[in-house]
């Protein structure tokens, strides 16, 4: 299990390759990446991500641990950035490894659902006209119920 909370950008290709290379006997690797949406000219300049140091790492470890108990996983990787990110920059990634693809796919979805509303990150959108905290969506809370 590899969990990183950082301000620096990450190299998706290099991370996915390194993650795959350290697995043994795993036939499936799933990765998901979240990106700051580029909504066109002047729409969104940047996104500022605040987090709760200490609790963030604990929450991510707990979510990854729960995924590992539910599915047969070889490994889990979570990288989540905080600080100031521009449009088109990568915010976060998860990777899961399993013998067969169903476990890796489902575990990746589970990680994302819980990361959205149970890991203490807060996004603030910054545009030409000002800045606003992103409101949590009811759909995201609802999504947890399927697990």
């Amino acid at each position, binding site marked *: 299990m590899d969990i990183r909370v950082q301000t620096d950008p990450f190299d998706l290709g290099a991370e996915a390759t390194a993650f795959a290379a350290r697995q043994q006997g795993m036939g499936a690797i799933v990765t998901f990446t*979240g990106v700051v949406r580029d909504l066109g000219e002047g729409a969104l300049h940047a996104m500022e991500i*605040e987090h*709760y140091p*200490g*609790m963030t790492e*604990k929450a991510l470890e707990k979510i990854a641990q729960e995924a590992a108990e539910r599915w047969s996983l070889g490994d889990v990787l979570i990288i*989540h950035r905080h600080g100031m990110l521009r449009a088109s920059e990568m*915010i*976060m990634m998860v990777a899961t490894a399993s013998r067969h693809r169903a476990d890796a796919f489902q575990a990746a979805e589970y990680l*994302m659902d819980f*990361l*959205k*509303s*149970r*890991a*203490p*990150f*807060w*996004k*603030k959108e910054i545009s030409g006209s000002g800045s606003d*905290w*992103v*409101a*949590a969506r009811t759909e995201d*809370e609802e999504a947890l119920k399927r697990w």
Partner: protein
Amino acid sequence: MDVLYFAWVRERIGQPSDRIDSAPVTVMDLVEELRAREDRYAAAFADLSALRVAIDQELSDFDAPLQGAREVAFFPPMTGG
């Protein structure tokens, strides 16, 4: 006990944390104590349905006891991912 604020709660109160020396019994007692301090606190804690609370870095509830708690944090619903 340390009380931490994040996101718009921090902005509305105007500072990231407070140190509390009284001994509120529950989270709700702490909220009442903070609300009574100043308008900016009352504004931040006006609608508790818009807030979440963590005790010692674990999500909790407003009726939870604070005995032994070292750190309480208030923040809006999380928007990670």
